[in-house]
Each structure stands twice: as structure tokens, then as C-alpha cells.
């Protein structure tokens, strides 16, 4: 094909026949193709537009609170709707701590499941276990919350906290009376909820590690475990990190199950036995009955903070993955 048909195509200057424009003009040559492209573009742009609108709405509605309380909103801890004094520090603290504690508990569990299922388990066991673990993700969070109140908390009170206190009771992290609803209960519920996400993605990542990696390690005289540790895990580290961040994102935003067991108290304490609060829980709890405009605005500001926090976490995750993933590690492209 030596001469191009001179079609008026939007955005593509005609008469410059590079490979790319020729490809695009071929694509755009048909009318239905052009319509199709516009529809796709519209749909694709709708999503970033949605995010920006969301941010805009949060910002506009939070403005009165931003003006009134200024940056002190971030580090003061009084939340008094009667006196109209608001500070979000306990919720920010509770959100971060409960999510990170949940990660601390969930990551070893989820990675163990993923490694077992890809490297060690007999073939007949893999699918059923994987299916059951992923089934955890299908349970509605209100069910987790109810289970937390009626099963987990009594269990913690009877069998977990007393021995924990007996051994580590001297640390500041286990001070105070354990009532049940607490940071600890919230973190454990969260951990259970994010395990399936981390496990499922990790399993996919490990499955994608080429067999040659394992064979090479085994050929060098490594044991199965050494092969996993020295060849498989490092190869998939970017993807694994992505899995963890996915779990973290889920933990930060989880609302229902957490609010049912965390105790909903606007307090900052180092003890995990004390009740705490999270931002998502506070918004869900208080939004419907927020009668004054300043109260509403303060809740919008909490939403804004949660939004920004999530963006920051995702940005950090992205940077970490780019750093780690230089080269050809599995999963880096997908993330």
C-alpha cells in the first residue's frame, strides 16, 4: 500500500504516513469503528471523571469544616457534635492501626496458604482449599461483624486475652480491662476478611513464576523450601507486594464488620484491648443523623481524609512496586 486514502480523521494529521498513523487511519477508516472508538473513549474517560467529581464533591462539602478547624482537625481528638467541636485524630489513628495490625496478621497467613497451594500441597488438595479460601471473600461483611460479636469476642475474652495478658501484660499494648469490642477484635476481623484477597492474588503470582526458576534452584542442590525462598518468592516479589497493598486498601475502607466489633470510641490509646474508631465506621454511623451543617461538613472532611489517605497508600504502593519490579518480575506489568 503506497498511497493512503486522505480521510479526515479526528486528531490525526493527514499526509504524514508513519506506521502509526497508517495503522490508526486504517482503524478509523470505517464509520462504525469510529463510533465504537468514541463510545469506548467515553466510557474510559467516565471513570477518571468520576474520581475527580468525587474528590470535588468531598472538597466542596468539607470546605466549611476545613475553614473552621483548619489543619488542627488532623491532630485534635475531641469529637463533640453537641458543642460542634470536631477533631479526627482518633479515627485516623484507628484506621491506620487497625489496618496495619490486620496486615501483620493476614500476610503470613495468606502467604503460607499461597505457598502451600502452589509448591507443596498434593494436587487433589489444591483446588478445594483455594476455593474455600476464596469463598471467605464472598461472605458479606455484616456476617463477619455478627460472627465477631457472638463468636470471636467471647472466644478472645475466654481463651486468648487472659494468656496474652499473663505473658505480655507488662507491655503498654495490653493495658486496661478487655471489654470485648476493641482494636484487637477489629484487627482480627479485618485480617480474616483480607486473607482471601492476598492469598488469591499471591497464588496467581506464584503460579506465574516459571518452572525453570524452581528447577534451576533445585539443580543447585536447594531443598524445596530453599528453592521457594531463594528463587520463587524473590521472582514474584512485586506481584506479592501488590497483593498485600490490595489487602491494605480493602482494610482501610472496610466499614460494617469493623464498626460492629471495634467499640466505636473516639480515643487514641496504645493498648489493643481498648475500643477505637475508624473513619469509614464514623461516616457510616453518624451521617444519617448529622443535622447541623457543620457536623455534616466535618463528616465530609473525614471522607476527604480517607480518600486522600487511600490515594497516598496506593501511590506509595505503586512506587514500591516500580522500584522492586525493575526487570521482568512476574506481575509487575499487571500492576
Amino acid at each position: 500500500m503506497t498511497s493512503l486514502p486522505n480521510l479526515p480523521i479526528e486528531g490525526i494529521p493527514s499526509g504524514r504516513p508513519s506506521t502509526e498513523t497508517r495503522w490508526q487511519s486504517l482503524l478509523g477508516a470505517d464509520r462504525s469503528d469510529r463510533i465504537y472508538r468514541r463510545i469506548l473513549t467515553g466510557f474510559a474517560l467516565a471513570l477518571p471523571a468520576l474520581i475527580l467529581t468525587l474528590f470535588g464533591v468531598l472538597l466542596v462539602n468539607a470546605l466549611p469544616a476545613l475553614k473552621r478547624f483548619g489543619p488542627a482537625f488532623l491532630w485534635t481528638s475531641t469529637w463533640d457534635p453537641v458543642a460542634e467541636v470536631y477533631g479526627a485524630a482518633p479515627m485516623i489513628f484507628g484506621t491506620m492501626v487497625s489496618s496495619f495490625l490486620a496486615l501483620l496478621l493476614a500476610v503470613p497467613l495468606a502467604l503460607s496458604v499461597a505457598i502451600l497451594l502452589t509448591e507443596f500441597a498434593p494436587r487433589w488438595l489444591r483446588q478445594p482449599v483455594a476455593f474455600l479460601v476464596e469463598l471467605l471473600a464472598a461472605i458479606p461483611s455484616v456476617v463477619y461483624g455478627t460472627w465477631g460479636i457472638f463468636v470471636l469476642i467471647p472466644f478472645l475474652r475466654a481463651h486468648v486475652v487472659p494468656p496474652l495478658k499473663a505473658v505480655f501484660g507488662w507491655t503498654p499494648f495490653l493495658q486496661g480491662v478487655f471489654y470485648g469490642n476493641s482494636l484487637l477484635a477489629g484487627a482480627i476481623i479485618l485480617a480474616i476478611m483480607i486473607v482471601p484477597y492476598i492469598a488469591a492474588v499471591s497464588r496467581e503470582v506464584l503460579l506465574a513464576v516459571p518452572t525453570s526458576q524452581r528447577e534451576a534452584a533445585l539443580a543447585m542442590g536447594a531443598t524445596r523450601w530453599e528453592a521457594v525462598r531463594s528463587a520463587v518468592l524473590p521472582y514474584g516479589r512485586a506481584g506479592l507486594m501488590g497483593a498485600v497493598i490490595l489487602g491494605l486498601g480493602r482494610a482501610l475502607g472496610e466499614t460494617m464488620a469493623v464498626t460492629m466489633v471495634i467499640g466505636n470510641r473516639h480515643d487514641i490509646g496504645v493498648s489493643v484491648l481498648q475500643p477505637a474508631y475508624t473513619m469509614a465506621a464514623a461516616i457510616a454511623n453518624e451521617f444519617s443523623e448529622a443535622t447541623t451543617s457543620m457536623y455534616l461538613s466535618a463528616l465530609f472532611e473525614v471522607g476527604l481524609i480517607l480518600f486522600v489517605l487511600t490515594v497516598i497508600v496506593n501511590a506509595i504502593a505503586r512506587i514500591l512496586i516500580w522500584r522492586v519490579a525493575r526487570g521482568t518480575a512476574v506481575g509487575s506489568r499487571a500492576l
Partner: protein
Amino acid sequence: MNRTTSLVLAAMLGAALPAAAQVTLNGAGATFPNIIYQNWMLSYNQAHPDVKLNYQSIGSGGGIRQFSDGTVDFGGTDAPMTDSAIAAINGNVLHIPTVLGAVVVAYNLPDVTQPVKLTPDVIADIFLGKVTKWNDARIASVNAGVTLPNQDIIVVHRSDGSGTSFVFTDYLSKVSPDWAQKVGKGASLNWPVGLGGRGNEGVSATVRQTPGAIGYTELGYAMINKMPFATIQNQAGKWIAPSLESVTAAAAGAMKDMGQNTDFRVSITNAQGAQAYPISSFTWLLIHKTYDDSAKGRALVQFVWWAENDGQGKATELGYAPLPKEFRALIQNRLKSIMSGGRAVWKGPSAE
């Protein structure tokens, strides 16, 4: 268009013609009266097919907001609108009480079988964190013959904004100057101590699961779930167990202070009357004083009047306390004052 289609269309239009007089009334607000409102609206619609009523239980705060924004025709609330909120809509609102509710103080003391008695100031001090043990002398002194355990009191309150919290703290503010000054009253509060449970079910679940816990829930909820609740000393000094009768008695007692021109934004907590249960409350419908659409205004007023008369009969079986009969004349006067285009939309039951 072929013949069949046009015939079908004509038939549909014909069927739609009588429906031109159909009135749809939308409301939103408090969750507490939702069960009886839905029941009323269904029954009313069966008797009056031309009036369709919808009510969404989104919470009192949301109800007030939507009513003020004009997105619904009427609102429902457990806490009356504040003066500033009323001023913001140029005073175009009437509060019409529909039924009564009450808040009970529920507790978890597995070894105590008789109902525990609590004085108002002790309840306030428990929720302030000043009384911390069940065998505190101030609790023991009014519970002769009951062996109270040497156990920590674990306070449980609502974490979500709620009319139940409003009623409860409105009561505490009246009986305890300390509470009024330190905490105040509201749907959401800065609680001095305790755990937050989400909804009546969250509070009651936490109370049941936690030995030594004390919390507050709606009366109807506590009755259905058979939770033990405290007998409370009322203003007259009598020990009153919460019941539908003692709640209605509170409204009758409070009416003595209300006067003929009341706007019904009256708190009936700590009411007078020997049989009055002190933590009782109205729940209100919010109705505009003037409606642009007179058909809507009339249909709404007729429905409300029906609810205040025939509707009251359903209250008890659904777990609500009916209004004292003495209220009807007052409410009738208020409903007669509702205008559309300079004319009253309703002239009273006799004019129908």
C-alpha cells in the same frame, strides 16, 4: 401503528384517566416509627386507593434535611427541629406527634433475677463514669434484698446518630446538671465512657455478650428481645417499669404543661404523673404549614387525621404507645391551620 396497538393504547389511556386524581405523598425520616408508618400507609391505601404514601426510614436527621430541602412532602423525626432549623425554612413546619416511644436501661447481670432499680442521678453518674461498680452503695441502697455483684459496670451506648440517644440524653440532661454541663443532649454525643454499638441491635448484642454491661435501647426492641431492664424512679418518686401504659401516662402528664397553642415540640422526658415512665418521647411527623398543591395538602392532612384516630388502635400490637385521647382536639386545630393558596385544605372531620 396498527389497529391492535392503538386499541391497546386507548384502553391504557382510559384506565389511566381515573388515576389522574391519584395523589402520591412521599416522606422520609426516623427509623423508630417506621413499622407503624408502613402499616398505616398500607391500610390507608387499601381504604383510599387514590392516595399512595411512601415512607423511607433514613433516620431523623436525614428526614429533617430532606423535608427542609423540599425533596419529600413530609418528614418524620424523633427529635424536634431546632429553632434555627425552623427559621431556615421560614417557619413553614408543623410538628404533629403520632405515637410514643420510650427508652429502657437494659443490663446484663446473669445472677440477678429481680429487676434492678435505678435512680435518675445514678443512671447519669453511671454514664458519666462516676459510678463504676454494680455493688456501689448508691445502687445497693435502693435495691434492698438484691445481691449485686462486685463487678465493673461496662457502659454501652449508640455509636450511630439516633433519636434514641437524643431521648435518653435529653432525660439525663434534665435529671443531672453535671450531665447537662459536661455532655448535653443530642443524637450523637461525646460520650465520657463506654463502648459504642451500632443500632439497637448493636447495643443489645454487646450488652448481652458482656457481663456487667449496661446500655439503652428502644422499649419495643427490648420487649421483643426479652432483655432485662431497669425500673426507674420518676419525678413523683414512684418506681416505674417501662411499659406502653406508663409511656402513655407520661404524655398525659406532660400535656398539663403544654397549653392550647403548643407547637408540640415538647420533651416529655421526666414528665409529671404518678404512673409516668420518665424516659418517654413523642415521634413526630413534619408537615408544611402551606402546600402549593392543595390536593396533596388535603390528602396528607386526611391521612394524618386518620392515623391519629383509627391508626392509634394498631399501636399497642406493634409495640408503640398510643397518644392519650386528649391530644386529638389539639392536633385537629393544628391540622385545620394548614393552608394552600390562602385557603385551609381541611375543615375538620365533620366537614367530610
